């Protein structure tokens, strides 16, 4: 049977900067308060939203050759919450993301330990991240993270991420 959407918690299609992310997260908090979801689930949704949105903002290609805008949604299904995002990434970023997500998907049992190691040895990059966001997303996810890259041109791909919480 196909999964049926019960409830759209948040849906956004457009450019992302820090102020827009703040507004989206405030909206999200309001919407989550209206739901019957447990505190733990609400916190995991919020955390996944923050890390996903911040990653999109930080890793937006400096020189964009395409005009495709980011997409972000959180939807409630019968069997869980699905956070989905799509955004343009550089080919270089594509390789890093692919490697990182595959690594997380292959180590779902040990993520706590790996996260602790990464945290101890991490540095905050110029973009302001520590490369830890995807690990948090992995910890929040209840299934493997699914993703896809669609070729835009020689420089860029359209990256889509689907996380079930």
């Amino acid at each position, binding site marked *: 049977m196909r999964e049926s959407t019960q409830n759209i918690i948040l849906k956004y299609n457009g450019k992302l900067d820090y102020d827009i992310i703040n507004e989206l997260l405030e909206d999200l908090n309001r919407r989550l308060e209206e739901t019957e979801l*447990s505190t*733990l689930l609400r*916190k995991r949704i919020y955390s996944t939203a923050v890390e996903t949105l911040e990653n999109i903002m930080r890793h937006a290609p400096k020189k964009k050759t395409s005009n495709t805008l980011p997409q972000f949604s959180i939807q409630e299904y019968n069997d869980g919450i699905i956070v989905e995002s799509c955004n343009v990434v550089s080919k270089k970023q594509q390789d890093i993301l692919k490697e990182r997500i595959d690594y997380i998907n292959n180590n779902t049992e040990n993520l*706590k330990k790996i996260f602790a190691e990464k*945290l101890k040895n991490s540095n*905050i990059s110029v973009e*302001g991240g520590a490369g*830890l966001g995807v690990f948090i997303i992995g910890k929040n996810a209840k299934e493997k993270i699914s993703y896809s890259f669609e070729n835009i041109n020689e420089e860029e791909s359209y990256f889509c991420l689907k996380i079930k919480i």
Partner: protein
Amino acid sequence: MDKINIEETKATPSVILDVDNRKFEIAGCSRPENVREFYMPVINWFESVLEKTDEVKAKLSGDGTVNFDFKLSYFNSASAKFILDILLYINQLHSSGIDIKINWYYEEGDEDMRDVGEELAEMVDFEFKYIMMRE
């Protein structure tokens, strides 16, 4: 002594580091736009305090254990790095003979916040007291 008193916003926590009033607390949500810029004054405060631990010890002694309260509702992955650094500094203060303990608050039902507290405690080799907050 120099103190830190940062007010809480929707995306940044309140930070109180006040030796004279024996109050040490980080509370709220932590996902600053520029995490390094936000936490740098806090890191600098610890660096300067660790240079004069005798003075700090004298001010804090004789009135029981000093509590350092973490009342974070949420912190993002970039903030985690700085929270770990702060915990390491607290551990250094403890090692220098200051009777300080860490209270790690979490909301009822937020087991992840408690778990991450336990992970951090293990990483810095310092025992926390866990306190559940009911709504």
